[in-house]
């Protein structure tokens, strides 16, 4: 499997706090990776670095073979725009734009808007009938689906999801996971930062972080997966 992302000896220090400490890992093309860990373990820091929203204090980050840690802020913005689709726990939809327009925002800053294309993205997440609704008129699950459609609209090389089900009830969590599973089956590379073993269970591989270091890496195996998920749930639930 060709690696789309590589982290080599990556560290991140905030003042006296070492958020990440010499982390090295890689993510293959089409792989679904889950990053788990307790609060303060460095999950969000890692997501920010992978998502080009921050640069490590030391170490190298290679996305599609391109070294990110040496790029300027503007160059990182361009990478983020062209190669990464971001899904947030809080959805972060623009409140005065409809679901369709929220998807088109990502198109606008990427290249040019195409309403038909944006509508198709909403169709893929089952939200075409709610396209003209404002975020305040959508349920949490629907807002997260709009957020996923926005992340998908520019055909990113990497989908980066931060607690995508963190604010959803069980029914909506299933819907979102089904969508992510469908994307994965379609060949998308997905990295999910999560607390939820159910979400991690869906991933091909789970990296467990603790105190800024990789504490464990678990590959999905049909028999072991459930057990690992339960173990994660019992031993590391926060």
């Amino acid at each position: 499997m060709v690696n789309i992302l590589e982290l080599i000896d990556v560290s991140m220090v905030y003042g006296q706090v070492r958020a990440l400490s010499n982390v090295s890992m890689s993510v293959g093309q089409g792989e679904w990776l889950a990053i788990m860990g307790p609060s303060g373990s460095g999950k969000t820091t890692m997501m920010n670095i992978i998502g080009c929203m921050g640069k490590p204090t030391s170490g190298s980050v290679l996305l599609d073979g391109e070294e990110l840690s040496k790029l300027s802020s503007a160059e990182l913005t361009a990478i983020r725009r062209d190669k990464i689709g971001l899904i947030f726990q809080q959805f972060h939809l623009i409140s005065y734009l409809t679901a369709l327009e929220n998807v088109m925002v990502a198109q606008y800053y990427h290249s040019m808007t195409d309403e038909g294309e944006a509508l198709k993205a909403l169709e893929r997440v089952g939200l075409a009938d709610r396209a003209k609704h404002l975020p305040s008129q959508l349920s949490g699950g629907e807002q997260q689906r709009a957020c996923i459609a926005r992340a998908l609209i520019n055909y990113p090389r990497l989908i980066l999801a931060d607690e995508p089900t963190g604010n959803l009830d069980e029914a909506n969590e299933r819907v979102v996971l089904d969508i992510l599973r469908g994307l994965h089956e379609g060949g998308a590379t997905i990295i999910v930062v999560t607390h939820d073993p159910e979400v991690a269970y869906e991933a091909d591989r789970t990296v467990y972080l603790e105190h800024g270091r990789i504490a464990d890496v678990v590959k999905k195996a049909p028999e072991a997966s459930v057990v690992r998920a339960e173990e994660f749930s019992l031993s590391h639930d926060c």
Partner: protein
Amino acid sequence: MFFRMLTGALLRQRGRMAMIALTMALGASICTAMLNVMFDVGDKVNQELKSYGANLTVVPRGASFLGDLYGDAGPADESAGQDKYLAEDELPKLKTIFWAFNIVDFAPYLQTDALVKGSGNAIDAPVLGTWFDKRFDSPTGESVQTGMVRLKSWWDVDGAWAQDGGPEGEASCMVGANLASKLGVRPGDRVSVTAKGGARLVIAGVFHSGGSEDDCLFAPLWFAQEISGRQGLVSRVEVSALTTPENELARRAARDPNSLSRHEWDTWYCTAYISSIAYQIEEVISNARAKPVLQVAESEGAILQKTQLLMILLTALSLSCASLAISNLVTASVMERSAEIGLIKAVGATSFEVSALIITETMITALLGGALGYFAGLGFAQLIGHTVFGSAIEIRPLVIPLVTLLTVTVALAGSLPAIRLLLSLRPAEVLHGR
């Protein structure tokens, strides 16, 4: 998409945007009022100052020479020849110079000493022939009304102003308060005036000027010409003209117009400096020397400059306040919308694109407020005009681009702190709290 985001943001933040528009409206209204008043204040202050007398004296060259020698620009004496006088029939030409419309009023004088006899006493007193309220058609066809009634409007007159009249009826005159007291006369009484010739005059009014004129008798010009035997002549002309404050160019020109380059000369000639108006008067009146009454001209300039400076300072102050208020409002708006701005940056917007969005929002709001303020300012200007000057302020189209430019500048300056904040805003911090 940009316009959808823009419209959405403007509508969503109606309250805050209304505050920005209102702030800008206040600044623009003061700016509009001050600029309109400032551009008009020259004429208004000039008009006000015109009521305190003439700022130019036109005398014959010979008399001027003697005046320069002896420090007396007064009338030529009776024994002098014709070259010590100006021709009355040339005076309408004053309204044909380049700055004809700036000649507000003028009055000719012919002075002669005469024996004035009232009810009892007979006194030798200066008798000045003049135009009280003369109406004539200028060579350009314009109907002109001018004379002492306007030129000496501050005189305290007991009775009425005399009429110019003609030789066919009984002539009227104005008698200075001191002379009237010595003669023991009052308005309605008659005096006999004798020089080379003599005649009786009815006193229309007794005036108090506070100056040496209080010892004089003012009669119609034709009367003074008749009794002195100087038909068609005047010894000096007082001119009240609207002028532009003197500057270095005007001072150089006043010393020697020939020292100016062609371009400077054109600029000077086509500007209503007192020296260029004097020069133009000398061009049309034969044998004349036009001399600025410097203390009046310079006072006018100083008052005008100080008034305009005050207006500029008020404008600058109001716009600075508006800029500060807008700065606070836009910064608060950016802080409130940090998640939205972070998201836009996260999906790939550059700092320039986000700044453009915020600046456009602010600019549209500020321009709307500026337009509102402009019309309110026109109202304020008229209020100032009627309250301070007792007349309307002329609306200058030039103020529109100036207010627009100042509105844009204030909005931009007010947006700068917010833009700095926006540039330093990192998506990771606002979206993930880190």
